[in-house]
């Protein structure tokens, strides 16, 4: 479902991704681990279509289509979702209106009917309950004044209501306490299905206890330097990245 071939990308003229190859099938979960600054978030932005991230070489095929040609909103409509490492605050935009606009935009893109306020409320309530998100949070402006953990849970809420096919979770586990980690883990697990795939960027084994990955990749200095099974994550946690960064250098 996702095929990344020799992807090179620059930001402000600086090459950050230096030839990434990665292939994922439907229903698979892959984890990406790697030292700070290795290009993990850059990869996730390139997949989501952020301006300013220029692809200089390579291609990304998503469900057989050229992903890089699509606008960010088209990618979302096609089922790509990025849970941001640093969720963005939207002062003055209520969380509820934001979610509704997003859900209806995506439904429209997918040829489904848009939900009215009542139906939408019902639809959202089930998910907020599972993720322990209060009505108060929904009334507030998006992410404004949210704690770090609340922001991350809010990302998972968006993911749950948008029902993506490819989810990229960029350090969604960072900054979560044990309970929140379990809630997020459960939320993500509930979304697992044979049609949905996930690319989980993380520094820790602990999220991978909840979401067992099919493959683990190590990204260092803009390249995938090693891939393996879930045991690779355990090994990294014990030994660190030093040998990979040394390799890469």
């Amino acid at each position, binding site marked *: 479902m996702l095929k990344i071939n020799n992807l090179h990308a620059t930001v402000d003229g600086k090459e950050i991704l230096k030839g990434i190859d990665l292939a994922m099938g439907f229903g698979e979960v892959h984890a990406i681990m790697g030292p700070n600054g290795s290009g993990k978030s850059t990869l996730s932005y390139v997949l*989501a*279509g*952020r*301006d*300013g991230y220029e692809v200089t070489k390579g291609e990304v095929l998503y469900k057989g289509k050229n992903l890089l040609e699509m*606008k*960010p*909103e088209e*990618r*979302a*409509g096609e089922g790509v*979702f*990025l849970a*941001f490492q640093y*969720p*963005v605050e*939207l*002062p*003055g*935009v209520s969380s509820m*209106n*934001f979610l509704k*606009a*997003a859900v209806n*935009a*995506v439904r429209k*893109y997918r040829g489904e009917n848009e939900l009215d306020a009542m139906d939408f409320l019902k639809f959202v309530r089930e998910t907020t309950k599972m993720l322990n998100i209060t009505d108060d949070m929904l009334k507030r*402006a998006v992410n404004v004044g949210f704690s770090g953990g609340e922001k991350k849970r809010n990302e998972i809420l*968006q993911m749950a209501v*948008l029902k993506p096919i490819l989810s990229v979770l960029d350090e969604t586990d960072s900054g979560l306490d044990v309970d929140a980690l379990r809630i997020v883990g459960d939320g993500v697990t509930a979304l697992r299905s044979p049609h949905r795939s996930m690319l989980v960027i993380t520094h820790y084994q602990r999220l991978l206890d909840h979401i067992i990955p099919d493959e683990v990749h190590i990204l260092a200095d803009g390249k995938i330097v090693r891939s393996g099974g879930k045991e690779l994550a355990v090994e990294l946690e014990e030994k660190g990245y030093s040998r990979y960064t040394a390799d890469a250098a």
Partner: protein
Amino acid sequence: MNKLSATSQSFVDACSISETELPWLNSLKKCGIEEFSKVGLPTLRNEAWRYTSLKQLERLDWQKVAEDYEVGELSWLTSGDSYKLVIVNGKFNYSLSEISGFPEGAFIGSLSEALGSHSELLETHLGRIATSKDSPLLALNASHMADGYVILLSKVQLTKPIEILNVGRTDGQAIAYHPRNLILLDQLSRATIFERCTGQNTGSYFMNSGTEIFVDQGSHLQHHRIFADGPEAIGVASTGVRVGSDANYTSLVLSDGGKLLRNDVRIHLSASGAETKLGGIYLADDGQHVDHTVLIEHEMPHTKSEQLFKGVLSGKARGVFQGNIRVHEGADGSDGQLTNKTLLLSPGTEVNSKPQLEIYADDVKCSHGSAVGELDEEELFYLRSRGIPYTQAKSILVESFLSEVIDEFNLGELADTFHQRITDWIRAD
């Protein structure tokens, strides 16, 4: 003495002061024309007009409003219960207005009627709250003063809002008019006024209005305005407000129409406990020039002013904001806050934001801030990454930027109207 420009001279020539029975009115008009003849229309050399040129006026031959124009369908913002005033090309129109049931002892009606029925009260205030010395446009307005609306409330708390519709309408001939309006509230009076300027067709008109407001002795006035003049309109709205002891003047202004608009507001906080709260939203598109100029005079101790002006410019629009808080000697303990933010949606726009503090008193709490920026790229991307198309994402961000101003005011049923105007503007952009 400078030689007047042809246009200034034509305004002087157009002024014919017929002697009325009211000597004070005659001298008010004469002072106006004397003052205007000295200076003429302001140029960019005039400090207060550094960023707004009225040169556009020179392209047309402005005529007086001769006839009574037919008006088309009128739309109202307030649903049912309100007093309604209609002023067409500066002339009060009684047949289109609905003022029956106005409280006993209070007055609402035309300037010409009030000059007859409340001559003494008008003599005391007219031309004294906003004087011909304040600006050349006010002087010009005084010299041509013929009609406008007058609202007089003493010990009256209105339970229904007043909606005022200023219609500009011309078919072909470029017209100029100079309405003078007066609002007086004293002794714990209360009123809410929604005032709108609209153009009914695409003709050129120059509206040079002068509005004088005195809110005194614990009275409260909410005066919310929409400037939505026709595409060829040039508007200068000069407003002078005096706020007396423990009184309050609250005003939210939205401007989105006209070719050029100068909204010139000068507020005198003239007794202890006087307060004012001003909000502004300006939306301007290709070819439009919008200027909001506000001067707050803290003349007495313990007076308070708050201003929040936000604008969005697009195309080749030009936006000007000049906000000055002047705290006079002795006005100790005054509190003046001023914020101006402008959002630029395209590279061809131009903005001049000039907030100023002039403080001659002690122990004051004053601050001002100004910011000009573009839409936040990260916020836009966040919205788009959730499937929200670019134009909708943009409109969500613009609306939230401006909503902050609307939310500061208690607009009741009119809040939706303000939001809707913003939505419509973004959609048309």
